[in-house]
């Protein structure tokens, strides 16, 4: 550790990191656009200039992202000279930046907006027209580029080069004609394109699925964990008006995903936003299914399970550790073997983040004592049994509704699921909250515990799975005592 004097205070700084990291670590705000802790600093925006006095030299203004920390450095981030230099740099950055904040999706979380509010001047001093460039440049399936808004910080260029290893974006042309482009207008490829929209300090790179869908200050944000693979990246779930999940964004976690996440996880809001959610209980009648309350359904389920010896129990891979422990107790009570459905690995796995294993809590459930079964095996087990209990989020679609439709009609099927896809086949189906609506823990492939948390409330009448299972266990135990 190196000792420096930052704003008149002696602090310790990591000599392997640039000066700006030391400033940020010690609560000295230094504006920056091109600097990102996960990328190589290049010093292209010049917004992080601070006044530094070193040795016998007179104090001078340097870019904090390109200056290594040295012993005895005297740094002033708030000096009038530093402020003036930054303000002048900002004026040049704003010279060609269009005034479309009301339209721009980044407004509200835009670093240019924030620092202009802090440092910049409200009126421009030039009468020259602003640069006219392409407003809606399509860069593949995920990203739309607005070249007018771009301030050429090159974060996106460095991201593709350094993180994904494929340099797909470049800064083309020189000087005032510079623009961000793909080579020969080829669309971007790969599973990590979405990150550049988060990286972009202005609104130049926007996500197609989120474009103009919501204002960022209207989104309710909650720290959670991604459920698309066993990596379990730390994410933020963002919900609009307590109803629809609008985006998932990566959250910094040094142990798991650092700053990034894959597009599969980023755009996995198709399932949470499904229309056919199970609310409360549903009982299959002779002609039609009938809606009942969760409590009534649990009562009937307890009666039904009491009649069968050791029904097949298959849990969803989305089950949290807490729900798993509860289900394990139920399995002991029923005399069944605890199994969880483990879908076959997909081809999305790579060496960056995605593991290719679609079970977010494989490690947690295995350590609890659940045995993995594949969908085909599960169907065989179900075909050979008289009664079965399928438990957890998305279990119906993971086992496969076609496969279940082919099972003998003598099978008594009881289901806890988020959506109603199994309701026609099941004797009783009971709604459970999905992973944006409940609390719990998933253990990722490396044993890191990822917390999932509720960013919105479950549909009316839906009870948490842990509480449903507790009720179920209590009523089965009560029935045995009276018998």
């Amino acid at each position, binding site marked *: 550790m190196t000792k420096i004097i930052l704003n008149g205070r002696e602090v310790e700084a990591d000599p392997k990191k640039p000066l700006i990291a030391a400033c940020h670590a010690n609560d000295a705000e230094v504006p920056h656009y091109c600097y990102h802790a996960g990328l190589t600093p290049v010093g292209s925006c010049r917004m992080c200039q601070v006044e530094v006095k070193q040795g016998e030299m007179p104090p001078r203004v340097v870019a904090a992202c390109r200056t290594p920390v040295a012993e005895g450095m005297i740094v002033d981030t708030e000096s009038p000279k530093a402020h003036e230099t930054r303000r002048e740099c900002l004026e040049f950055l704003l010279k060609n930046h269009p005034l479309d904040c*009301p*339209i721009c999706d980044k407004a509200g979380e835009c670093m240019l907006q924030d620092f202009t509010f802090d440092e910049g001047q409200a*009126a*421009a001093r030039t009468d020259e027209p602003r640069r006219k460039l392409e*407003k809606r440049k399509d860069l593949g399936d995920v990203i739309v580029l607005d070249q007018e808004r771009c301030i050429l910080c090159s974060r996106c260029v460095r991201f593709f080069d350094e993180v994904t290893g494929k340099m797909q974006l470049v800064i083309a042309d020189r000087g005032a004609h510079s623009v961000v482009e793909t080579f020969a207008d080829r669309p971007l490829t790969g599973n990590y394109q979405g990150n550049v929209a988060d990286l972009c300090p202005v609104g130049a790179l926007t996500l197609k699925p989120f*474009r*103009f*869908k919501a*204002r960022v*200050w209207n989104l309710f944000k909650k720290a959670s964990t991604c459920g698309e693979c066993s990596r379990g990246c730390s994410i933020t779930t963002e919900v609009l008006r307590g109803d629809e999940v609008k985006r998932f964004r990566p959250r910094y976690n040094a142990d798991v995903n650092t700053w990034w996440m894959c597009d599969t996880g980023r755009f996995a809001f198709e399932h949470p936003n499904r229309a056919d959610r199970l609310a409360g209980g549903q009982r299959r009648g002779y002609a039609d299914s009938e809606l009942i309350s969760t409590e009534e359904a649990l009562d009937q389920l307890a009666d039904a399970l009491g009649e069968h010896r050791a029904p097949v129990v298959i849990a969803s891979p989305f089950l949290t550790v807490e729900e798993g422990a509860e289900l394990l107790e139920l399995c002991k009570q029923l005399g069944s073997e605890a199994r969880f459905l483990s879908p076959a690995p997909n081809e999305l796995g790579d060496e960056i983040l995605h593991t290719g294993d679609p079970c977010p809590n494989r490690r947690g459930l295995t350590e609890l004592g659940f045995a993995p079964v594949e969908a085909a095996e599960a169907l065989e087990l179900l075909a050979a049994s008289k009664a079965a209990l399928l438990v957890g989020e998305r279990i119906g679609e993971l086992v496969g509704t076609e496969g279940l439709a082919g099972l003998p009609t003598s099978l008594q099927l009881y289901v806890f699921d988020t959506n109603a896809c199994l309701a026609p086949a099941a004797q009783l189906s009971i709604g459970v909250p999905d992973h944006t609506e409940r609390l719990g823990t998933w253990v990722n492939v490396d044993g890191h515990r990822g917390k999932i948390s509720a960013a919105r409330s479950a549909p009316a009448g839906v009870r948490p799975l842990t509480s449903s299972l507790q009720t179920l266990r209590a009523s089965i135990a009560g029935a045995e005592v009276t018998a």
Partner: protein
Amino acid sequence: MVVVERKELSFLERIYFPAILKGLKITMSKMFAPRFTRQYPEEPLPTNEVTRGQPRLAVNPDDTIRCVSCGLCEAACPAYAITIDGHETERFIEREPERFDIDMLRCILCGFCEEACPKDAIYMSNELELADFSRAALVYDIEKLKRPVSALQDRIDYVKKINDRWQTSSST
């Protein structure tokens, strides 16, 4: 115990007549004075450009809406009356409202939305009447809120005049 002493009435007060005449004099004088009450539903209230009536959305002469659904009026609204969802357009202005609801039962006609609007799209019109048979009908959607710029012109000019008084000159 409180004893209220009553004042003895004078003769003129006891005969009652002068008091009646006094009252009649007021009645007669008001009968021929100019009237300031109004036959309200038949005779509408007078309005001018300063009237802060219900908010309305300005529509350009080429039939495009001025609103870009930036959400600033929604954020400024102290009564949470406004709900906006945007979507992408093919026009040069890339964004426009898909849904723009103002709950007129919540709206307190404060005019913050008009003040917050960066695109000169929402104005307090001179429309004041608000009555319907259900609550749902009083949540006005975008079609109910659209008004041509010509209908709002007086207010637009007035707001511009007020704003110019406060703003310093700027080339942006």
